[in-house]
């Protein structure tokens, strides 16, 4: 007898450890869901290969996009996320191409890159416009597939763009999205390979620029052209008298200045790191590196006064470099409304002050050439050189680069969401086991084992979820919640954490199951938010904060606390759902069956405990939502001058506070018992969902920066489902059971 039970416990231990191992595997170890694992953080970077391109190294080159210095890897992934809603591309055979390989092809070998399937088009009418069928051609397309239809896409999108945003139908939205995607792809393609000026030969002859322009026969790469342009400007700056409209040399310089300035429009990211003496740490595109940034939109050039422009420019160029610098700053400060002076200042800077071609331009040219020639060693050594120069010149800003690259591949939230499913399954099986053993009158060792497994697994997943949040905080240097996307991550995290502690005291599997459900749900929502092009146009979920939000103190207090309020209110609601489902299942199987009485006894316990849990968690919700709302009021008083302005988002938060207060008062006064409390808690889900998403959809008020309308239907379905649960709580069959309603 004794031997038997010990054998059983050994078996149990093995199962427990296997489950835990499975959880660790999903959450941390190398697996097929993510391209890097926890080991990669420890190992550091692998040695550069000698027989292939060092794309690992390439992916770590620092660039600036969306206001933030990041590794090329992030740019590649985020771009693909926008284009294809995935972090991979497809080749002709349907094999997955990792983002960085795709990016290298697009940048350096555009002919091959154009053949990779990088675009997602799944709207039947948009497909029809391109003459494609979903069933025949699939939904993934290459740039080559789209190229013949570019003008159609362009004109249709323009038509759609004329429709007011609220009135656009799904075709309009999809065609506009496709247009933006194509534009993004083309900008990426031309960022490092500037489009050539498309000059007719006679025109080139007339301007006498042919000898300066890039000549593929004799020149190694574009740097030769850049160097010749520099010679031109050096010559001109020594003869400022030649700066007049009639001068041929001046016309040449102006031609190239315009050409390089135009290139800025066709750059998606900033590849040239700040110059070492630049206090503002300004990153540059190739065009900006050559001729500086245009002070105004190019169209403003038409408003210039040509003769005054030439005179001003001549004066500027004849100044000493130091004096010129001061003068340029003065113009940009005090003559902001004068396009003539502003453009003259840019031209003067380009002619007189920018004397050398930045070596980084040459390095990128090298990269391009060696990639095209399959010259591994040159490519790899250039990558190393670029990284060295880049990180040196970027300074502080590049310190999180290495981490970000591995973090990208680690996909902590994807891993966590899979592990949450596992926990939910284990907890679900534990209930089945418990019901089974209760009906047979056994002790229920299996159920206990599974509950413990779910509990321990929650801790493990919580670690990877926490790591995901902490990683974002480290990269951004910000509190955890900065936008709608991160609020979803944080809501899930808060709910799981609270469930973990609840489960610590009440080992019933309920908190584990509901926690994993909320965790999984919120991660899925977060993933969908990251795909929303209106919320996240660059595909980077770590975007910069607008001025009014740029306050770590308030983000860390108001935003975090109010988000915990959302999270706990959702949790209470899901426990309410757990109660309804529990009762529903029991009333289906319990009442008349042989084992009914045994099951009903366990129900009383469940009611008592679930009631207590809902109550306890709602206390937390009220606390956090009230304090968060009030802190929000104080922030509003600080930045907008009023404590409360009846703004849509503020009202949403207030609704949550009031609803939680109603739940607690209804319980204290004894008006609502367990069923009423559960229903109120479930409706709390509706209120919170409204406050979280619904208020943004109205598109009014100061908080409407998270505008989105795609979520409208999901929100309605969610509300409907909650109403069904509330309806289930009040099903008449519940009442007719010979069970005394237990008092909470």
């Amino acid at each position, binding site marked *: 007898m004794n031997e038997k039970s010990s054998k059983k416990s050994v078996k149990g231990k093995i199962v427990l450890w296997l489950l835990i191992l499975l959880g660790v595997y999903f959450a941390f170890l190398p697996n097929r869901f993510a391209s890097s694992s926890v080991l990669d953080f420890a190992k550091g970077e692998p040695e550069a290969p000698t027989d292939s391109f060092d794309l690992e190294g390439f992916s770590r080159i620092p660039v600036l996009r969306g206001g933030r210095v990041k590794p090329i890897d992030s740019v590649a992934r985020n771009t693909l996320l926008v284009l294809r809603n995935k972090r991979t591309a497809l080749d002709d055979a349907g094999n997955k191409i990792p983002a960085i390989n795709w990016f290298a092809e697009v940048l350096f070998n555009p002919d091959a890159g154009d053949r990779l399937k990088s675009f997602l088009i799944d709207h039947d009418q948009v497909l029809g416009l391109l003459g494609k069928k979903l069933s025949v051609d699939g939904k993934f397309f290459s740039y080559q597939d789209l190229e013949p239809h570019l003008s159609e896409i362009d004109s249709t999108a323009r038509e759609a763009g004329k429709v007011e945003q609220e009135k656009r139908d799904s075709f309009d939205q999809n065609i506009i999205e496709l247009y933006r995607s194509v534009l993004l792809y083309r900008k990426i393609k031309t960022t490092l390979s500037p489009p050539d000026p498309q000059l007719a030969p006679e025109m080139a002859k007339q301007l006498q620029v042919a000898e300066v322009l890039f000549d593929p026969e004799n020149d190694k790469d574009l740097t030769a052209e850049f160097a010749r342009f520099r010679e031109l400007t050096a010559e001109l700056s020594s003869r400022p008298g030649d700066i007049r409209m009639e001068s041929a040399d001046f016309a040449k310089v102006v031609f190239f200045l315009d050409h390089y300035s135009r290139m800025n429009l066709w750059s998606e990211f*900033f590849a040239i790191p700040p110059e070492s003496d630049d206090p503002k740490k300004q990153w540059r595109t190739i065009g900006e590196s050559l001729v500086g940034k245009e002070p105004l939109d190019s169209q403003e050039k038409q408003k210039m006064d040509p003769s005054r422009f030439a005179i001003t420019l001549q004066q500027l160029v004849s100044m000493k470099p130091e004096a010129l610098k001061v003068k340029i700053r003065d113009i940009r400060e005090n003559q*902001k409304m004068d396009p003539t002076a502003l453009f003259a200042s840019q031209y003067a800077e380009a002619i007189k002050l920018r004397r050398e071609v930045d070596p980084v331009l040459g390095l990128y040219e090298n990269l391009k050439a060696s990639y095209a020639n399959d010259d591994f060693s040159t490519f790899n050594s250039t990558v190393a050189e670029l990284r060295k120069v880049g990180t040196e010149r970027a300074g502080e800003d590049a310190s999180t680069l290495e981490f970000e690259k591995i973090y990208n591949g680690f996909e902590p939230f994807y891993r966590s969401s899979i592990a949450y499913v596992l926990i939910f399954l284990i907890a679900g099986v534990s209930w089945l086991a418990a019901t089974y053993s209760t009906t047979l009158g056994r002790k229920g060792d299996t159920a206990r084992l599974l509950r413990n497994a779910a509990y321990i697994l929650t801790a493990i997943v919580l670690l990877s979820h926490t790591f995901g949040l902490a990683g974002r905080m480290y990269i951004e240097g910000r509190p955890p919640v900065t936008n709608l996307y991160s609020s979803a991550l944080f809501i899930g995290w808060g709910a799981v954490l609270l469930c973990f502690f609840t489960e610590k005291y009440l080992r019933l599997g309920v908190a584990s199951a509901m926690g994993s459900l909320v965790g999984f749900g919120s991660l899925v929502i977060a993933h969908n938010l990251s795909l929303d092009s209106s919320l996240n146009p660059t595909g980077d979920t770590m975007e910069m904060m607008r001025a009014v939000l740029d306050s770590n103190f308030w983000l860390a207090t108001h935003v975090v606390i109010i988000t915990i309020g959302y999270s706990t209110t959702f949790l209470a609601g899901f426990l309410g759902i757990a109660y309804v489902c529990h009762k529903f299942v029991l009333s289906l199987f319990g009442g008349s069956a042989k084992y009914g009485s045994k099951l009903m006894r366990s129900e009383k316990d469940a009611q008592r405990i679930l009631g207590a849990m809902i109550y306890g968690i709602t206390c937390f919700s009220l606390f956090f939502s009230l*304090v968060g709302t*009030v802190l929000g009021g104080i922030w509003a008083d600080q930045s907008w001058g009023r404590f409360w302005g009846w703004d849509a988002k503020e009202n949403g938060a207030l609704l949550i506070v009031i609803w939680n207060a109603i739940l607690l008062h209804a319980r204290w006064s004894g008006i609502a018992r367990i069923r009423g409390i559960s229903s109120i808690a479930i409706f709390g889900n509706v209120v919170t969902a409204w406050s979280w998403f619904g208020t943004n959809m*109205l598109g*009014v008020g100061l908080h409407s920066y998270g505008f989105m309308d795609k979520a409208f239907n999901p929100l309605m379905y969610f509300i409907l489902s909650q109403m069904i649960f509330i309806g289930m709580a009040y099903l008449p069959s519940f009442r007719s059971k010979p069970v005394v309603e237990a008092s909470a």
Partner: protein
Amino acid sequence: MPKEKQKKKRGSLGERRKKFSWLVPLASINLTLTLLSLSMILIFVATLEQVRIGIRGALAEYFESMFGIWYYPEQFWGGEFLNAIPIPIPGGYLLGGLLIVNLTAAYITRFQWTGKKMGIQLIHLGIIMLLVGQLATQAMQEESRMQINKGDSSNYIERFHGVELAFSDVTDPATEKVVTIPQQILEDGGTIRTSDLPFKIKIKHFGVNCDFTVTPEGSKRSGLVRDVNRGVGQTANLSVSLKDEDFSSEGLNFGYLVFELFDGTNSLGTWLSIAHPGGNHWWKESPKLSDFAFQPIRHQGKLWGVTLRSEREYLPYSIELLDVENEFYQGTEIPFNFESDVVLNMEGKQSRRALVYMNTPLRHDGKTFYQYQMNAAANYTVFQVIRNPSWLIPYIACVLVSIGLLWQFSFHLIRFLRKNSSSAQPA
């Protein structure tokens, strides 16, 4: 509820209940729950209505009223039929007032004034303060703006809403005299006489918003401006059509006034004046209408200027704008800083420098100046200026509520943890 049992211990609650027995029904928790549920409906409806009538409209209709009438939106499901039914929604003043009564009554007749329940008392006291504070704020708060050009200084603020008719006697620039007639009087209409002005003003038409267009020369004006025979209205040949006030937050309301001046019974002419919602200096941008900021009238050897403008308040101090800065994150259109560098020249001879930027307003003399708009290219900044004497109340209320909540929930939590750790691990 365990209150009855503890009556003996202190007796005070029982005594209070007897003494204020008429308050007991008002303190009912059912009333609390009803009021809270109704306020859910109020807030939800008023939020939805912001789409239609803007924040200011929703404020006036629902929050700053006893009740509002709501029509189910037509574009929603079933809207064609339901839209016709007017649904009364209890307003903010009604619910807020009743909640204050309910809470106060509960305070007297239901709460135990003991240390153990102190959390509850603090929370509800804080909530009463929040409600009272909000009522006070909505009654007393004034919102204005101040626009300053770089290098200039300004000593007056203008209300966002509300206009006034201003006559200024500029015959001698050293002793400029200004007579203003507030909107309320303009709204009443009729003929206005004042000893400060040498003429009578007959209000012909006044409205808070209008559409105006320059009609081609030679064509006849009609309607409101038919009689206009002097000033910009006549030279620019403006025609004006009525428009409802736009309550949305971005709404622009051009107030207009058609008035006739009389010297005794002798008509001096009929003028049109339109107030620019951004302040009358904006008229400078449209050459034909630039005189709306100052329409000259010569009368009895004196030069008067007349204009309908946003209601002004002159300050005993002035603010000078040294510089404006507007910075963006590199390569994006996301601003990360708006900043105005100003000098505050105070009532005495003192002055101090201040930086006004997001989350950091300038506070002086009961007024707060917030960075509101700016145009770095055109070198001007606009502050939102707020005077809210009750601004401190919410801060105190917050502290009370937070302490109360912490107090109460730590009691509950400790009890919950104790109870469950002793009976943990149920099978």
